[in-house]
């Protein structure tokens, strides 16, 4: 019942979702001199910083170290920004949800669209960087898609749950921030977590963000296939958490307005 309603609402509000995501992106750069150029300039400048740190400061052996780190940061930023915003999402949108009906998980989806747009730009820069490092791109590149689908599903599912509990638990945003910091260090943004002994492979398997990073790096840098078994398991977890998140939010959405 909830799923049918979910797809119905998604169809009904799709224009609003796209328009409001665009509006949020425009709002972020409104008033700045370079406007939309910042969407490209910001990740590009970060990439230059990582290139400098990886190649000059740490003198990493891997010639494409900057790409390795930048790809990790791209995946991490998407997950981190969405989950950390989720805890306060309903509180920040109190003005809307107490005055008008809006399926509340749409706020999560809007957030994902905004951060997804930024991730796509960063990924485009990764492609340019791959060409710069003369990495031979073959058909494996399309294998970036299943990793990203798994990441989006898990981000949405966990995001909905965090958003729901954020209404009831005052300090949740602090806890989420600390938990995310832990996940950050266990995701292998700056290093290949799978090669760390003895817990590296285990850490890779229990962390969907690390798995998504690994999948993207394999597809773009190493021409390798992802770990299909773990990818399948985490995609299934993503579907389950998303369905659970939708159900929890639908079931409780008439109470949020009163508590907030």
């Amino acid at each position: 019942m909830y799923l049918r309603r979910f797809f119905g609402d998604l169809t009904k509000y799709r224009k609003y979702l796209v328009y409001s995501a665009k509006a949020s992106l425009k709002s972020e750069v409104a008033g700045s001199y370079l406007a939309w150029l910042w969407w490209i300039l910001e990740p590009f400048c970060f990439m230059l910083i990582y290139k400098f740190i990886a190649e000059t400061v740490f003198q990493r052996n891997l010639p494409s170290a900057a790409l390795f780190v930048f790809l990790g940061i791209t995946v991490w930023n998407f997950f981190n920004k969405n989950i950390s915003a989720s805890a306060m999402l309903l509180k920040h949108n109190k003005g809307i949800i107490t005055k008008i009906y809006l399926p509340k998980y749409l706020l999560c989806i809007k957030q994902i669209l905004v951060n997804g747009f930024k991730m796509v730009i960063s990924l485009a820069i990764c492609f340019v960087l791959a060409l710069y490092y003369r990495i031979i791109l073959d058909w494996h590149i399309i294998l970036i898609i299943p990793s990203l689908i798994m990441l989006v599903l898990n981000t949405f599912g966990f995001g909905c749950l965090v958003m729901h509990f954020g209404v009831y638990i005052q300090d949740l945003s602090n806890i989420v921030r600390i938990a995310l910091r832990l996940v950050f260090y266990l995701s292998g943004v700056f290093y290949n977590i799978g090669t760390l002994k003895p817990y590296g492979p285990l850490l890779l398997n229990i962390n969907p963000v690390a798995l998504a990073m690994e999948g993207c790096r394999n597809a773009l840098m190493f021409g390798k296939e992802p770990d299909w078994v773990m990818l399948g398991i985490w995609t299934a977890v993503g579907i389950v958490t998303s369905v659970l998140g939708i159900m929890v939010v639908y079931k409780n959405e008439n109470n949020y307005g009163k508590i907030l």
Partner: protein
Amino acid sequence: MMEKTIEVKNLKINYRTMEPAKVTKLFKKGRRVNLEHAVKGVSFDVYKGEIVGLVGQNGSGKSTTLRCLAGIISPDEGEVNLFGNSVSLLAIGVGFQKELTGRANIMLSGLLMGFTEKEIKSKMKEIIEFSELGKYINKPVGSYSSGMHSRLAFAITAILDTDILLVDEVLSVGDARFKKKSHQKMKELIMDKDRTVIMISHSLDTMKKMCDRIIWLHEGEINMVGKPKEVLAKYEEFMTGEK
């Protein structure tokens, strides 16, 4: 036979509120879940073109009923049938983003209210004209004075109207001149013969003049339904008696 536009059957709305807790007290015993029965089995019908007023003390369930009819909150028990009619609760300035232009905010607010892009575009000119913002419509809303902000917000709500209008207090905004204009527009919207209206107002005089029927809610239940003159007389008697 009169066409039914709203059917409310045995509507019950409870608020299960759990006070926001600190993490340290999350698993503490005795953390209470408060169950508040805001509406306790209310039933009524509203017909096309009818203007129905809801009266009652604070906490009697008027605004909760209105918010349920608007779909903001869902019933715990019972049914609300709107027979496919569009409905909106008059709420001004919902979803405004101050960095965007007035024109972009009209689109954003309209889509949020459930209108299609085509419907909003067809009413865009009328909204801009009514708001009297002129060239400022292409400036960011953040640069507007509070009066300009209210005028735009009111124009969107008043021009993008629906089959069923739910009004929580009659709105009039802006300076003295625009206040008069907005009040007149509200009156026009409410008095439109094709539009069904349910309204709440603390001005019993306004209710007496505008409404065809009054529903008096008391502690989440219907106390009396009838002609404005009769119900409001009893209600006034009750209120002054209690005081």
